[in-house]
Structure formats: C-alpha cells, structure tokens
C-alpha cells in the first residue's frame, strides 16, 4: 500500500462510527451484511459527480467495514486463514507438499539426489518390481487384517488345499503312480495347478482391494494385476517346499534331478496363469457374463491338467484329448525334472512354447487395448 493515495480518514471514521452504533458486539454475519448493505445504499444516493471521487467515497465505506469486520474475527489476522487454505490447495504456490522440506543431514543425503540418480531410482525394471512388491504387501496386509489370525490363514489355507488334493491322490493310488510315490506326485500336481489358478483369479479381477491405488500417477493396471498374481508363486513355493521337504524327510522322494528345470516349469505355469487371467479380465470387461463361462473353463483345465494321473496311463483317444491342454505338458515336464524314476514321453516343450507365446501375445494385446478404454479408468 506504499504509493497509494490515502483514503479520507474522516470519511472512514464517520462510516465506522455509524456501523458501530448499529451493530452489537454479538451481531451475526447476516445482521452485519444487512447493516453494510444499508450503509452502502445510503452512500450511493449522495455520491459526487466525478466518478473517481465517487469511487473513493465508496472505498472509504469498504475500509470502515474492514475495520468493523476485524473486531468480529477471532484471530484478528485475516491472512492466517487464507494461508492455511493455500497450504492445502494443490494449485497454490504455497501448497505444503510442493515446498521443499527442511531435512536433517542423514535424511538430506538420502533424498537430495541428482536428477540422474532420481530418474534411475524412479524408472526401470527394478523400480517396477519394487512397486509391484509394495502393492503385493499392501494386498496381503489388507487380507490378513480382516481376521485375528489372518497371517496364519495366508499359509494355512493353501497348505490345507494342497494336502486335500494329495489325500485324494493317495486314495486313488495308495503307494505309487507310474513309478512315482503318490504323495510327492500329488504335491507337484496340486502346487502347479493351484499356482495357475491363483494367478488367474488374482489377475482376472483386475485389482480388487488395490484398485484405489490407480489414483497414484506411477501405478498402472498391469502393476496391480501383477501384484495380485505374485501371490501365487510366493505362497506355493513356500507350501510346496515345506511339503516336499516333509516327503524327503519321510524318505518318500529324493532331491530333484533337475532343480533349475523344475523351477523353469513352475515359472512357466505361473506366467501362463498371468497371461490367461489378463485375457479373461479383458473378456469380462467386454462381457461380464464371461466370469461364469470362465468358471467352467477353469474346472475343465483342472480335470485335464494331470493332477491325479500322467497322460502315459491313459488309453489312446483320451490321451490325445488330454494332451491338448498345455498345463499337463508342463506338469509332466516338472515331474520328469523332479523324479528320477519317471521320464515323460508325451509332454512336448515346443507345444508349451507355442501356447506360452500365443497367450503372452494375446494378453499383451488385451492389456494395451484395455489401457485405452474409458471404462477401465477408475471413477
């Protein structure tokens, strides 16, 4: 206000005195507004002819109103309120989160990085893996927090599931199945099948509890689907290792013949689950009823995936039919990699590769197309 021509102090004082007379100390805002309106109307009747003088006269009234209003303000500092609001307004230059925080030395060294270092930290494969891992942890913590013993159920539930399938396997063949001990045979089949199924269900629902995380600018749908599918290998590697360790302790099986090959089969089955789930997710977006169709398809895949048998045991027309399912090929290749007493004749790695590439390509196409669909934007 340095160079502004001062407004007539007498006019301000006269208007303020008039308002002071009319307003009590506990006047409500409505009363005050009505009083100000009356004063403005009175002043407007008798304004000077020169517009500049008229504006100055009206300005004096506004200054008087300002003086009166200050008495009714609790903090007396009218700027304080506006600056607080500015601090929470993302478009304001005073927005709290856009201000550089004052950091202590060790924290400063951690956060104050060069542009190149910052870019390295926020892009690349490792960064995406960290994002997915934190999303996975968030989903797990959310699921586990629904119950007092939620974390125990996270392990117990899949463990019981695998054991039930193993018992079925033991009921059908009490000792051996095609020269493989029944119990570890069942564990391999169950872990592979459940990994596939968990990856499919995790991916096909497109995020569930993680969907609100799409609000975060760096998180994409793919990260969320991946984080949901990540549950499958982590849980079933743990459960499978425990049960196969138990089988080894009971002398029912030995250390795997080809551990890298076995793990490659496991990774393949998980990725195929991920691809299939992405495909189903896309189909559900087009037609929600496909959710029901998928229920039947999944059951059909389960029956055809060699949970309780190997294709070499089956008669000819049935064998050809079962071998259409790439999952039975992967499970049999995995059993070949584990058991020294079994070597599959039917499973074909090339057939698996064909399905793997085809499903992967379809899943990528669906993912790319769905990213552009308006319906997939979270409202």
């Amino acid at each position, binding site marked *: 206000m340095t160079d502004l021509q001062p407004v007539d102090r007498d006019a301000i004082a006269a208007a303020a005195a008039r308002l002071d007379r009319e307003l009590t100390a506990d006047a409500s805002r409505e009363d005050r507004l009505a009083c100000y309106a009356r004063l403005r109307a009175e002043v407007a009747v008798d304004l000077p002819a020169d*517009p500049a003088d008229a*504006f100055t006269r009206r300005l004096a009234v*506004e200054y008087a109103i*300002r003086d009166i*209003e200050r008495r009714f303000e609790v903090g007396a500092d009218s700027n304080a309120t506006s600056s607080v609001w500015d601090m929470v307004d993302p*478009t304001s230059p005073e927005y709290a989160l856009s201000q550089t925080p004052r950091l202590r030395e060790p924290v400063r060294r951690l956060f104050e990085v060069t542009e190149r270092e910052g870019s390295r930290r926020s892009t690349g494969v490792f960064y995406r893996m960290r994002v997915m891992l934190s999303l996975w942890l968030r989903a797990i913590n959310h699921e586990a927090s629904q119950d007092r013993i939620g974390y125990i159920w996270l392990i117990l539930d899949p463990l019981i599931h695998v054991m039930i399938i193993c018992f079925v396997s033991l009921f059908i063949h009490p000792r051996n199945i095609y020269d493989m001990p029944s119990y570890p045979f069942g564990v391999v089949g169950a872990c592979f099948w459940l990994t596939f199924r968990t990856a499919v269900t995790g991916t096909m629902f497109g995020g569930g509890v993680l969907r609100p995380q799409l*609000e975060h*600018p760096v998180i994409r749908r793919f990260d969320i689907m991946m984080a949901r599918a990540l549950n499958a290998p982590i849980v079933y590697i743990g459960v499978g290792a425990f049960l196969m360790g138990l089988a080894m302790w009971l002398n029912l099986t030995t250390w795997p013949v080809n551990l890298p090959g076995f793990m490659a089969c496991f990774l393949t089955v998980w990725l195929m689950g991920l691809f299939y789930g992405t495909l189903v997710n896309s189909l559900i977006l087009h037609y929600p009823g496909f959710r029901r169709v998928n229920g039947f398809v999944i059951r059909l895949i389960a029956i055809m995936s060699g949970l309780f048998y190997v294709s070499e045991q089956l008669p000819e027309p049935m064998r050809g039919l079962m071998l259409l399912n790439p999952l039975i090929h992967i499970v049999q290749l995995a059993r070949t990699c584990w058991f020294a007493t079994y070597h599959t004749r039917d499973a074909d790695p090339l057939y698996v590769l064909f399905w793997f590439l085809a499903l992967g390509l379809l899943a990528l196409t669906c993912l790319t197309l769905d990213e552009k*669909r308006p319906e997939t934007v979270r409202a």
Partner: protein
Amino acid sequence: MTTIISYTKRLRAARTAFRERDTDTARELALGLIADHGRDDVLDAFVGAINRYLNATMRAALRAGDHHGVMRHGEPLLAEPDHRDAARAAFIGAARAALSPEDRVTTLRNLESALEAVPDYWTALAEVVGDLPPLPENIELGFEVLERLPGHDRGLHGLHTLVDRYRQAGARQTMNVEP
C-alpha cells in the same frame, strides 16, 4: 417406430463417440436424447458413465498439473449434482493457477451461476482485482467482491490500487486535453 429407430441410432452414435473418448459429442447427444425422449435408466447410466469418466480425467489432469485440461473436463460437471463440489473446487483452483487476471475474471464471470455458491469463487476474484485494467466495470467488480467478502484484505487493497490507477489515468487525460 421412427421414434424408436431415431432413439436407438442416436444412442448408438453417442456410445460410439464415448468409446472414441469424444465426450463432448457423447454428452451432447445424450443430453439431446434426454431432452427429446425424457430420462430413462439407460440414458441415466450412460450420462453417469460419461460424468465419471470426465471426473477421472479431470483428476488425472489435476495430478499432472494440466490446469487447462482440468477446466476443460471440469466445466461440464459444474452442473452435475454428484460431481459438482469436486468440479467447482478443481475448476476454480485451476483458473487461479493457470489464467491471467483478465482471463480469470472473464472465465469465472461466464460461469458465475454455477460457481458463485462457492466461497473460493469470490476469493479467486478478490486476488486479481488489483491486477485488472483501471476501468469502471472492473472497479464495480471489486465492490461486488467486497459485498460478498466484506473486509477482505487483498480484495480491498486491490480495489484501492484500481481506484488510484483510475484517478491517475483520469488526471493524465485531463493534462493532455488542457492546452
């Protein structure tokens, strides 16, 4: 029969426009259908989907700092009861951040009926009063702002500046006219 065909055809065109993310056309067609055929569940759901999409896009633009995008996507939502509050806040915030004083006043005044209920609307105007050209209509705007926000410091200072500049401009004109 012709009416039904017209309805189906126009709804299909609106849906196609929405799929192509041309929300302006989709919304215009949908509102036209509502005006001609009245509301029904299908149209309500469709307009709801467009509004949700606009809301999501507006918030994405807000996160990205695209203030013009916020205003573009937020404007149709200013009259929608479900999205009005968020759209008003985002629109005014974006106008404060992105527009010059004169553009801000023009934009906000054009949407006065949709925005005046929000206190931020008058605050956004009070902030720029002092930066406007010293014209009688801008001075009147300053007084109007102070009627809504009595005693607002920044608005009052802006108005005082404006009146002062108006007086100086008048004095210069007088000096130029005098021989």
